[in-house]
């Protein structure tokens, strides 16, 4: 059992858990993920690590409540326990002094992106961080971003705060020379940013989030095409070269179980959602 030490609602429907898991905390590195399982027939949910403290023996991850499993997880509170947390899985990010690093994060993935931004900053890089979301309401962790970056830029899809859309990036890339770009967020964001950095040959690292089950190379559901080759997101990644990733295939593969996911979520809501009553759906 893995005790929840703290629970924070970052923005509506996005929650951050800090969980007691000393073995994982001792080994975790930026870029890796954990698999969280709760309930007797619970799904195995892959979540990117967004913090760890080896001394305290804790590891943190953020999740977006979109389906039955993540909504159920969101019902848990401080002091509750999660049945199983497995990790750290996947390969760590490459962290070293590159020079000028552009970090772009969208939605829930802003949380793990900032862990990487922090590591990049500590390795002597000049870090520009872009945090983006649908609208102002969902912009999260701005303070943390400022702490770990030399420059912070806010952008939203609807322009309710900061820049509207990604057009500002074109100007930024024209004006400033970056040595590396790291993107974490929705696949469309990773695809668009990779296209924008391509003309400037900026090595662009994306964190792919295909469907996963075991998360350690067994099932192959997370297969992605990178540079024309089949790779497994869980053991070969989760980070890949954004200029060589087949994002369109990934988008289709992410949607393969959408009707079932919706059904499951709907039935859960209809049956009253969270049974603990502390967090009514």
């Amino acid at each position, binding site marked *: 059992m893995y005790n929840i030490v703290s629970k924070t609602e970052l923005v509506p429907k996005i929650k951050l858990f800090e969980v007691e898991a000393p073995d994982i905390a001792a080994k975790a590195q930026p870029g890796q993920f954990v698999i969280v399982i709760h309930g007797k027939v619970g799904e195995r949910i892959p979540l990117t690590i967004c913090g760890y403290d080896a001394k305290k023996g804790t590891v943190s991850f953020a999740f977006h409540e979109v389906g039955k499993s993540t909504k159920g997880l969101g019902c848990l509170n401080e002091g509750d326990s999660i049945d199983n947390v497995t990790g750290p899985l996947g390969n760590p990010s490459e962290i070293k002094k590159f020079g000028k690093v552009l970090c772009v994060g969208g939605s829930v993935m802003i949380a793990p992106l900032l862990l990487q931004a922090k590591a990049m900053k500590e390795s002597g890089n000049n870090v520009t961080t872009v945090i983006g979301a649908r609208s102002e309401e969902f912009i999260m962790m701005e303070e943390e971003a400022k702490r770990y970056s030399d420059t912070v830029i806010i952008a939203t899809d609807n322009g309710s705060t900061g820049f509207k859309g990604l057009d500002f990036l074109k100007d930024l890339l024209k004006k400033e020379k970056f040595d590396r770009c790291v993107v974490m967020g929705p696949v469309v964001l990773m695809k668009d940013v990779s296209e924008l950095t391509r003309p400037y040959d900026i090595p662009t690292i994306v964190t792919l989030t295909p469907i996963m089950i075991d998360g350690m*190379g067994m*099932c192959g559901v997370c297969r992605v095409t990178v540079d024309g080759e089949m790779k497994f997101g869980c053991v070969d990644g989760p980070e890949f070269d954004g200029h060589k990733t087949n994002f369109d295939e990934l988008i289709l593969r992410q949607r393969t179980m959408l009707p079932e996911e919706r059904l499951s979520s709907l039935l859960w809501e209809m049956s009253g959602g969270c049974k603990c009553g502390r967090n009514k759906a």
Partner: protein
Amino acid sequence: MAETKPKPKLNKKAVEMAKQEPKARAKNFSEVALGYPEEDAQEEASRCLQCPKPQCVSGCPVEVPIPAFIKCIREKKYAEGIATIKSKNALPAVCGRVCPQEEQCQKKCVIGKMGEPVSIGRLERFLADWERKNGSQLPPKAPPTGKKVAIVGAGPAGLTAAADLVKLGHQVTMFEALHVAGGVLMYGIPEFRLPKAIVQNEVDYVKSLGVDLRLGNLVGRIHTIPELMKEGGYEAVFIGSGAGLPQFTGSPGENLGGIYSANEFLIRVNLMKAFQFPDSDTPIRIGKHVVVIGGGNVAMDCARSSMRLGSDVCLLYRRSRDELPARQEEIENAEEEGLVCKFLASPLEFYGDEKGWVKAMKCIAMELCEPDAKGRRGVKKIPGSEFTMDVDTVIIAIGQTPNPIIQRTTGGLQSDPRHGTICVDDVGKTSLDGVYAGGDVATGAATVISAMGAGKRAAKAMHEYLTNKK
């Protein structure tokens, strides 16, 4: 004395074991074979000749004292019978169900030369099921040796090695990467062939012997093997991490939706209980027309599971019926349930619809050619024989290779670069001192019992190693 009475005439026919009717069972996930009632077990046990030099035992990879446990059944000493089996085999309820006895113990049975061999597997199952109903007794344990042993992977090889080593007095910790123990017995073999409650019962038995089980602990990521030995104080390690990495055909279109590796399909259905979705949380999407590519036991498991989920299933195999590597019994069961086979055909390409879901596949006819060095018939494509099939789900069951995480994170551990298997000697010793391996990770994908045999041999060698070590 029973032995001095005139022997009844030898019965050449084995006592049949009741099964669910094909039509009924093809729609549910309950166990197909129902097991012997006591009187049937008595009758079948009476067919055993109690040979003084039993051949059957030599056919068993873990050398179960077969005539001895059958004698116990005759004498209705069931507790003694199961203890006799468990002296050699920690997982009899599993072996009684999924061992290929026809290739092993029963193949050597003397009665088999005149008629049907004694149904050793069914009798083993009878005793294991009797024990589950009547409670198990713990075997005697040697005094503690003070030596710590790590077992990597709680599948058939690891469970067997753990049980043997803990009985010899060692302190055993078993690390399992998944959230449940049992390995392929849990994630691979379907409920209708091996109910998961039975596997759990066997796992609980191994735990009750004193094995410390750590779930969700992926060796190589949390602790590497060198770390376990240096910092963790483990003096010997057994690697039984199985063959978990799925192989794909490499044909274009293989990443379309609706194309599953056998592992993904079986993990969803068995481990994550997708057959109970939406009561369970992990879904499976399956169409009406399923093609399973491959011809082994895993392919049969996928095909029979698909039928139970309501699909019509065609098995596509590149060789002919005679070369099917699956157990005969499984092929017969599958065909009774409605499996259609297409032999001598191989996939070339998969086509998808606008949503990226598979809708058709192009195949090519194959012909058999000369056998290779191992005696397996080769195959070649027949030019111009391409044909297209409409499908909405494809399951690729063409084999698994070992997961490379341990090999990559254990310096000095020799492995076969082509197959990814860990190199071992006869008793499972690897290139590293104190490190042993066995089961699929050393042999490539094989059977449950061969993995158990390897676990047993390694446990014996590890015990000798630990005893001789200062």
